[in-house]
């Protein structure tokens, strides 16, 4: 398509993520609730991996660092307090990235 700025995702990469999100919605109906945040974080991690090479340095740094702070298979049941604290840390780092980009 002409006249459209180059994005950070290719169509194939976007389809990959779209399929993951749609099918996760279906599987989550039948699965343990603790899988909910795991699936969302996996989607975020995959999105981060896909966009990192075509993103700003700050975004690339975030997706390679704080976004991967939680182990990929971590679930709240294995240690809820620590899990929440680490997730809160990721949220803080994300907010700092967003603030620098949009509100400073």
């Amino acid at each position, binding site marked *: 398509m002409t006249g459209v700025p180059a994005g950070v995702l290719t169509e194939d990469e976007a*389809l*990959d993520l779209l*399929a*993951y999100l*749609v*099918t*996760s919605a*279906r*599987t989550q109906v039948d*699965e343990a609730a603790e*899988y909910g945040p795991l*699936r969302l974080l*996996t989607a975020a991690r995959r999105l981060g991996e896909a966009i990192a090479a075509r993103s700003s340095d700050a975004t690339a740094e975030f997706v390679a660092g704080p976004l991967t702070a939680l*182990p*990929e*298979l*971590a*679930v709240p*049941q*294995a240690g809820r307090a620590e899990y929440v604290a680490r997730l809160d840390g990721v949220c803080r780092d994300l907010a700092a990235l967003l603030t620098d980009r949009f509100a400073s």
Partner: protein
Amino acid sequence: MTGAPADADNPVLAAIRTRRVVRSMGDRRVSRADLETVLDAGRWAPSAGNRHLQRFVATDHPGTLRVLRMVSPGMIARPAAVIVICTDWALAADFGFRPDVPGPWIDVGTAAATLMLAAHAIGVGAGPVTSFSKAAVATTLRLPDGLQPDMIICLGYPAPGGPAPVRRGRRVTWQDLTVFVP
């Protein structure tokens, strides 16, 4: 239990104890001969009433594998091949199983355990996936009506990396899981 088990040389028990779920697989393909060896083992899995309600759908087609991974949130590895364990519910109905009973699914588990042990025995890594859209997988594999995909066994050679296994405190022992009764 302390030290090495007395039956440490038993190859079957050794295989059971050393098998691990492989979540990171490399590009090396699994040969058709190895795939058939694993499938042959699946034929010997315990099956309630010797009914054999399960069917195995295997593929090593890169495009099909890619789509299967896209519609399977629980598929972390990028397998070189998969075996999809399906239940033939039309055949189950012939035996008198209603579609809401769990019996036939138990044989999905015995088949999965057998397939993964067989893969391990010939040096191929394996990992089960149950988190997938059954509707999407059935469409992708062009399954006939009545054949339901219940579990995907990923096959491939272990590669470095991949997520650490889920740890829920200390290692579980058989004593943790067992109660002797009179």
